[in-house]
């Protein structure tokens, strides 16, 4: 028997679409994209990016200075929205500091700091003095920073499965809580723009020179973005519910999806099975929808096959860009906002949907009462995750 669904009693996200849930919701409603011409780094790739303003001017407080780097500044900026730190403090008081786990998702973590060090090596091929700090040159940099920032003292793990990272954290947190290892969990993720991903996706010829247009017939690739988002999971409470999660592997290719979306289907089926629901009970689906030719083609087919014509499905990457390891939490928060505010966002920037799209995929926003929402995340290495949420009380 599945345990009772966990409650999400606090959540927040910051991306190019806005800092915190209010600004994010406003951008979704007004269909205002956060994508701008790429101005990141000294030799910018010709593309658009979803950059969060003010990261460079968000200093870490003195007691956290040793974690100073751009990714951790973005995480700190994200933590400081929507009263999230206060909500976690209250949970820490309720349960104890070792009973609130941190399960954190990221793809590249603070590798931007490592890139910066290599660009500024001293005469002896060593890192410049201010970057000679092991804490920020390892994948767990931001996960550990988040635990310290929230003054928690129990389990703290980084999940790094590329673009499914901060979706899979929900499943891991559910397991930790249902097995009694923790009473609550902070889940979330942060990924920030860096040379590795801008030039890396460019080398794979997946980056678009224009604002990305998910599911459009003439879409031309992805825009990279950055985001930080967090959620507090507990056994009880008034918040929306984590009804189910499903994980799978494509076992197909490191950087291309399974051609029939077999892994994606397995993840969706597993999430529905865990929730004891069928596909027709899902009101809104936030798609992975990167605007790459291949992802959107495969995903549209999966959605068309599995869901009824009434389902409202969309990609919100036209607002935010593809925030990689942070996409799972960002799009989970967008899904929770859709449920709370009875508004299914559409697919910004898409003008003429690809003929492979079924009636589920919407360009325009739709005002409708939504009881359940699903968020889909698929990553390099064929790592898939589907999350199913239910509206709060």
């Amino acid at each position: 028997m599945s345990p009772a669904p966990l409650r999400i009693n606090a959540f927040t996200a910051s991306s190019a679409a806005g800092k915190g849930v209010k600004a994010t919701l406003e951008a979704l409603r007004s269909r205002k994209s956060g994508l701008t011409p790429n101005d990141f780094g000294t030799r910018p790739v010709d593309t658009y990016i979803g950059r969060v303003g003010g990261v460079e001017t968000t200093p870490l407080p003195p007691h956290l200075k040793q974690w100073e780097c751009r990714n951790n500044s973005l995480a700190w900026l994200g933590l400081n929205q929507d009263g999230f730190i206060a909500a976690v403090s209250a949970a820490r008081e309720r349960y104890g500091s070792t009973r609130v786990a941190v399960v954190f998702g990221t793809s590249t973590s603070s590798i931007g700091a490592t890139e910066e060090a290599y660009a500024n090596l001293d005469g002896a091929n060593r890192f410049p003095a201010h970057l000679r700090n092991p804490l920020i040159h390892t994948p767990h940099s931001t996960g550990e920073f988040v635990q310290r920032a929230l003054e928690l003292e129990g389990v703290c793990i980084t999940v790094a499965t590329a673009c499914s990272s901060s979706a899979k954290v929900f499943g891991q947190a559910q397991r930790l809580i249902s097995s009694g290892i923790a009473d609550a969990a902070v889940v979330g993720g942060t990924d920030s723009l860096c040379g590795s991903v801008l030039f890396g996706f460019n080398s794979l010829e997946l980056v678009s020179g224009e604002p990305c247009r998910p599911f459009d017939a003439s879409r031309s690739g992805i825009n990279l973005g950055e985001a930080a988002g967090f959620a507090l999971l507990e056994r009880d409470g008034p918040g929306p519910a984590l009804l189910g999660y499903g994980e799978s592997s494509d076992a197909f290719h490191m950087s291309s999806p399974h051609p029939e979306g077999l892994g994606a289907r397995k993840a969706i089926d597993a999430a529905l099975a865990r929730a004891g629901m069928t596909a027709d009970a899902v009101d809104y689906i936030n798609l992975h929808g990167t605007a790459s030719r291949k992802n959107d083609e495969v995903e549209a087919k999966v959605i068309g096959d599995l869901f009824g014509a009434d389902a409202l499905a969309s990609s919100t990457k036209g607002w935010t860009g593809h925030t990689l390891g942070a996409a799972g939490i960002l799009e989970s928060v967008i899904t929770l906002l859709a449920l709370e505010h009875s508004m299914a966002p559409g697919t910004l920037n898409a003008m003429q949907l690809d003929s492979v799209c079924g009636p589920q995929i919407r360009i325009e926003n739709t005002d409708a009462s939504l009881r359940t929402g699903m968020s889909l995340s698929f990553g390099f290495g064929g790592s898939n995750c589907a999350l199913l949420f239910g509206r709060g009380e």
Partner: protein
Amino acid sequence: MMQARIAYIDGIGVWSAALPSWQEANRILRGEIPPPQEARKRPSPELLPPNERRRAPDTVAVSLEVASKACAHAGREPASLPSVFSSTHGDLAITDYMAETLAEGPELLSPTKFHNSVHNAAAGYWAIATGCMRPYTALSASHRSFASGLLEALVQAQSEATSILYVAYDIEAQGPLSTVVDSTGRFGCALVLNSQPTRQAKFSLKWNTRDAGNPRDSIPGAQCASLVAGNAMAGAMTLLELLALSEGSCTYALGPRLELELEIAAVKNEAETAP
């Protein structure tokens, strides 16, 4: 006394320059035989076709070697097992390549190196090589990576009532990165864990977490510690030594005030009930 949860260890895999297989490691760790004189630089996992064996990143070569050996030891088909992969630093050679190329000529970045740079590359290659569509995850937790990954594998085994593959590995830091990141050599180990006692069970593993003012990582015997000294995943040697000795208990720090307690005992019935 620990309020125990229990899992069973059905299979073990290990590889480092000084520990070419679990069967040899078992005797080396007990002091029955010395480590091999001529250390091998890198494993050659038979799971991959010969040309891919050479091209595979070190993290992939090490983790596929130990994962496939653990599955064979457990008598399990790899495609049947969900898995947890844990690495402190991921592929440090690729990180060095990426950062160096970005500094010198970012337009020349290799797309293959880029997609191999993800932390879940080893898990992804494992899934592809074995055709396994069960979920995997790829974790990191600084100096607590071995224990944190093991915890997730144990939690999954318990909460899903399943068998699961756990793989932990780290490799040597390269280039300028090696001046801030401490890790030497190539080392990996893998366990097939089972929530149920079956005829494949080699050891029982009692475990739990507990609050601790000053959580401790137990230290293996000096001889064992020296075999993979310097590798970021060397903490795994504490558990491997207990497995070689067929009994004992240890602790690992999981957080600033939380530790993982483990207690190993041999399962005696293997010989009688094996097919």
